[in-house]
């Protein structure tokens, strides 16, 4: 009988040290199950972003093992990193869009790197832009959109290639209350379709009335 690991993300005794004095994470062990929606919280500088960066190989751990969707990141070669990144959609507080590209072109980037046919790219990009409610602005340049709209484009880009995991690093940090709620609704929808979500935020209001699991970091240590 084959054993199927329910954990899609697993960290074992993971530490990250930038310099002798700067210990960003210390012996973090945690598991996130497939389809789970987990909040990662803590004050600024607690290590939330570092932990997320470790999960898409923007940083490598100093110690410990990390597994993401069956891939052992401690033995991952540089040429395998693109494969990992196609499994992990990342959303940032500052959106990281190309200002001079249109909404369509920004989202299409994620599919172009996969080498999909033009017709497939066209269809999937249009579908996802419709889903995030921006089909009327598909030909606008990213710089011409509001903050909330830009974040919806960033979400569309992160999910258009249907990754099993979404990492969101303070995605509502630059948005007002209404736009924040729109983003949260989009994330809930994605999770309802089976996508695993790790949502880093220092805004406690986002999860105070939720049944979701909350992982709390403080000074690089996991405290709950």
């Amino acid at each position, binding site marked *: 009988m084959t054993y199927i690991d329910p954990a899609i993300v697993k960290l074992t005794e993971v530490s990250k040290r930038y310099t002798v004095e700067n210990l960003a994470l210390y012996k973090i062990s945690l598991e996130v199950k497939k389809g789970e929606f987990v909040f990662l919280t803590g004050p600024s500088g607690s290590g939330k972003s570092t932990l997320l960066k470790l999960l898409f190989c923007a940083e490598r751990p100093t110690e410990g093992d990390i597994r993401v969707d069956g891939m052992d990141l401690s033995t991952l070669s540089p040429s395998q990193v693109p494969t990992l990144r196609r499994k992990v959609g990342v959303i940032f507080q500052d959106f*990281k*869009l190309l200002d001079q590209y249109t909404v369509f072109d920004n989202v299409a980037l994620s599919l172009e*790197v996969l080498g999909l046919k033009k017709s497939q790219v066209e269809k999937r990009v249009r579908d996802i832009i419709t889903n995030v409610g921006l089909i009327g602005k598909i030909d606008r340049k990213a710089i011409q959109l509001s903050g909330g709209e830009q974040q919806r484009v960033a979400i569309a880009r992160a999910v258009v290639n249907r990754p099993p995991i979404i990492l969101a690093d303070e995605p509502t940090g630059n948005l007002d209350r209404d736009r924040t709620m729109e983003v949260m609704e989009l994330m809930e929808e994605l999770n309802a379709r089976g996508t695993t979500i790790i949502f880093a935020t220092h805004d406690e209001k986002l999860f105070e009335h939720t049944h979701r699991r909350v992982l709390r970091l403080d000074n690089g240590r996991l405290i709950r």
Partner: protein
Amino acid sequence: MIAGIIYKRAIADLKQNFTTQVMTTLVVTLSMLLLTFFAMFSFNFRHFVEELGSKLGIVVYLKKDVPQEAIPSLYKRISALRGIEAVNYTSSEDAFRKLESYLDREKQVLEGVDANFLPPSFEIQINRAVFNIDRIREVAAELSRWKEVSKVQYGEEWIDRLEVFSGITEKAVVGAGLLLLITAAFVVTNTIKLTTYAKQEELEILRLVGATNGFIAGPFLVEAMFQGLAGSLLATGIVFATYNYLQSLMSQHPLFKQVSLVFLPMPYLLTIIGGSILVCVAGTAVSMRRFLRL
């Protein structure tokens, strides 16, 4: 499909950074232009030396005691040597007559001189198809060993001097060519570095969405190939136009009737074009390395 996207991205980038691309291509063109002119000069100089050598031929002076009956067999022996195109015999009397006609009004200086005082000789032309300076030397050395021969002349001093000069020119061309190629590579490397700095955000996003190094570097390499190709084609085109212009000028002037210019043969042109593309691609690959580290 990936190749199509890379090509599309390269074209988009060429349009977006048109001025930078044009400037880089111009620098490549100038470097390749200088290199092609040097190569053209060197090639024509060598051609000139060879032409001159083949025209000089070999003069074999016979000993005065060689009997007249031996001349036909000597003629046959010389004609049988490899690479001989024509052999002309000049008897002592013929040589005397030639000297008289050369002296023209001053021929009275020859009054009372024995008409046989000049040695008989053979003038030999080497076949142009097998011509080379070494072959002339070999033939001359062999002839000078014959017992009937007193002296062999083939303008060796001229040929040696021109050969040395031609050798120095070739070395200078290779040296200057290398320097120019390094300059072109340096400029291309730095232009691509500036472009990649300007596009750092885009490259970062591409990496984030799972682009491979090939996907990221591909458009830059395509652009470099284009710059190398365009630069070298422009350079060889300018040199060809200059060659045609000089040819037409020289054909009108009686002074240059004996000299012919030649254009670089295809292997030279292909080497210049291939070298230009290679230098641009290598320069780009070097400058991209830093951006492709994960």
